């Protein structure tokens, strides 16, 4: 039998990492039918998936994450993979926050692949040194001090790509840094109206407005990796981006700690915004396919795979029991922080990457933030717009 996997890891390192999964599934005796659909953070993939489900020929598994898993669960098209989870002792291996996301009505329907930390801040060591910035700023005030220095040195302060998801990535790091974990949860997970329009949110937008002034005008539409390249080339000092940026640094032959620096975004040291890639299993008609599905689930949770995959991709394994040997410093810090925050409650879902709220609201939020970033909208107007967006259905 074959497993058909819908995913949007299509290029370079990602594709190679996913290739590992294929190998493991093959070893288990199943064929791999690759259903790759890239583009726009999975937009096209989701469209294709819906068409497949409606046509009655859902793939074995599809790359879906966050609350969307629950939405699909409601449609009654997902497969129960408790059998694999029990055998693989997933409950023990996964942090509770994560395992909850993978379950629908108490049953596992999805297998997680990796954890990305989104609230990273990357910096070019040399640019910082030249500007006289010696440490990575730990809070926003410190950041703006450093920013002024870098600006004076002639380099661009922040490399940014003006795409809605990148805007949102910066926004959530700012919100987390300014308001802290509780505020973040209240505003961006529970959508508490008071928090959404409160002074903290206004301050968040004010900070964002200030950040805007350190971004070049050409940022609009720039791909994140081009922004990263600006940091790599020393054209810019900082970038706010998830840990996948490491891949670019690595590809350019840069060494963490020496050529480039990684740190949590200002004020978010004690928090961890996670973005978990996972494969959701769809109900299959024939028994053979179901077996393949379980084999796939097993393969995903296979520690060996998780190690190789995450080494390639810059993220960290989602489960315990994966050897940490070959991971770099940034990744190790990530793992430690995951551990600690999952215990102290600082582990929060990334809103920018669809982990926090359903897609309609997330999309509406993104629209507001993108508009704020690209117009002279006031923070006050922005928070009102956010509150309205929170009502999107």
């Amino acid at each position, binding site marked *: 039998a074959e497993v058909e996997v819908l995913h949007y890891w299509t290029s370079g390192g990602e594709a190679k990492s996913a290739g590992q999964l294929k190998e493991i599934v093959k070893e288990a005796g199943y064929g791999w039918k690759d259903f790759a659909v890239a583009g726009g953070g*999975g*937009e096209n993939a*989701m*469209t294709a998936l819906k068409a497949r*489900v409606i046509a009655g020929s859902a793939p074995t598994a599809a790359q879906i994450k966050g609350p969307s898993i629950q*939405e699909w669960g409601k*449609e009654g098209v997902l497969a129960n993979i408790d059998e694999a989870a029990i055998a693989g002792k997933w409950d023990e291996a996964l942090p509770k926050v994560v395992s909850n996301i993978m379950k629908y009505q108490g049953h596992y329907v999805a297998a997680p692949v990796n954890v990305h930390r989104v609230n990273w801040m990357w910096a070019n060591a040399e640019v910082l040194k030249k500007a006289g910035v010696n440490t990575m700023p730990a809070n926003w005030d410190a950041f703006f001090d450093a920013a002024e220095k870098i600006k004076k040195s002639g380099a661009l302060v922040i490399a940014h790509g003006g795409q809605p998801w990148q805007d949102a990535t910066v926004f959530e790091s700012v919100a987390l840094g300014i308001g802290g974990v509780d505020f973040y949860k209240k505003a961006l997970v529970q959508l508490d109206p008071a928090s959404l329009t409160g002074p903290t949110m206004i301050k968040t937008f004010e900070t964002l407005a200030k950040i805007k002034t350190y971004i070049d005008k050409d940022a609009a539409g720039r791909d994140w990796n081009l922004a990263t390249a600006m940091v790599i080339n020393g054209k810019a000092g900082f970038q706010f981006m998830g840990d996948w940026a490491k891949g670019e640094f690595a590809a350019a032959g840069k060494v963490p700690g020496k050529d480039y620096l990684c740190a949590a975004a200002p004020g978010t040291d004690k928090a961890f915004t996670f973005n978990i890639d996972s494969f959701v299993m769809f109900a299959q008609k024939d028994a053979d396919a179901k077996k393949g599905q379980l084999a796939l689930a097993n393969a995903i949770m296979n520690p060996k795979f998780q190690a190789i995959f995450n080494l390639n991709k810059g993220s960290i394994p989602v489960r315990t029991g994966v050897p940490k040997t070959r991971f770099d410093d940034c990744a190790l810090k990530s793992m430690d922080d995951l551990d600690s925050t999952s215990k102290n409650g600082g582990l929060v879902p990334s809103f920018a990457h669809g982990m926090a709220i359903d897609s*309609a609201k997330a999309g509406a939020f993104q629209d507001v933030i993108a508009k704020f970033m690209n117009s002279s909208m006031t923070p006050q107007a922005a928070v009102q717009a956010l509150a309205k967006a929170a009502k999107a259905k």
Partner: protein
Amino acid sequence: MSAIRNTNDASKANKVLHATRATGVAPSLATPGKNKTAQFSALAALADIWLPRLVLSPTIIASLIFVYGFIGLTAYLSLTESRMMPNYEFAGFSQYAALFEIDRWWVAAANLGIFGGLFILFCLITGLLMAVLLDQKIRAEGALRAIYLYPMALSFIVTGAAWKWILNPGLGLEKLMHDWGYKNFSFDWLVDSDMAIYTVVIAGVWQSSGFVMALFLAGLRGVDDSIIKAAMVDGASLPTIYRRIVIPSLRPVFFSVLLILAHIAIKSFDLVMALTAGGPGTSSDVPAIFMYQFSFTRGQLGLGAASAMMMLATVLAVLVPLMYMETKGAAHGR
């Protein structure tokens, strides 16, 4: 059709006609089976009446299902609370109410107006201009025509990146001009919220105007030579002839062109997606993208359907009067 006289042939024929008569060749030249066919006549008559309809019916049925049926379905979905997947519970016009509340929708609608209008206008102008210029017995007409036409062959998935670079101030034209020493040159529409939609026009015109040119060129080639001669004798200069006589007589071509351009403009999705993805922010959003994202990415199928219905309504509002005018104009002899 030139009637070439051939007196010679005719008189020869005369001789032979005469000769045949003289030698008394039997008048009956052929005797195909005459009554064989008669019995099938009723059947054949029916066949000729029903076959055309029969042949057309698959298309009609397909069109009824796949165009009208699906439009109907979408119309119905727009009246439901469908979210990620279709849901057939009737919910009234709430989706439309919600749609009209969304800023981004109005931005998209306005952008369609700007883009559609300018796109069609500039395609017409450049297409017509190039067609007229190419019609002046140009030496390398074939090569130039191919150059103008080739963008039509490329999908925007292909060319979007190239355009993005060219228009990007930090990478493309502006940088080039700066490198060449024109420091004051500024061309940053792509990253300017107010101007981004115009870059879409630039790329759109690039892609489609060659095709428009081909259509107009074909039209020009069909204009009666003697009309132009008449105008020249009347004393009109070449530009006047084109402006007053040739171009007005291309009216049917204009109609075809408008039809095709309107279709491209309204469906433009790849183009905007590849160039600006609706950005910066949502400033260059268009209804097609809006609808796609809301329907498929954001799980607001009902809202997406409502926006689709609005799109269709706009199309009809623009097109029906256009078609009406054209048929009326044609009936009255342009």
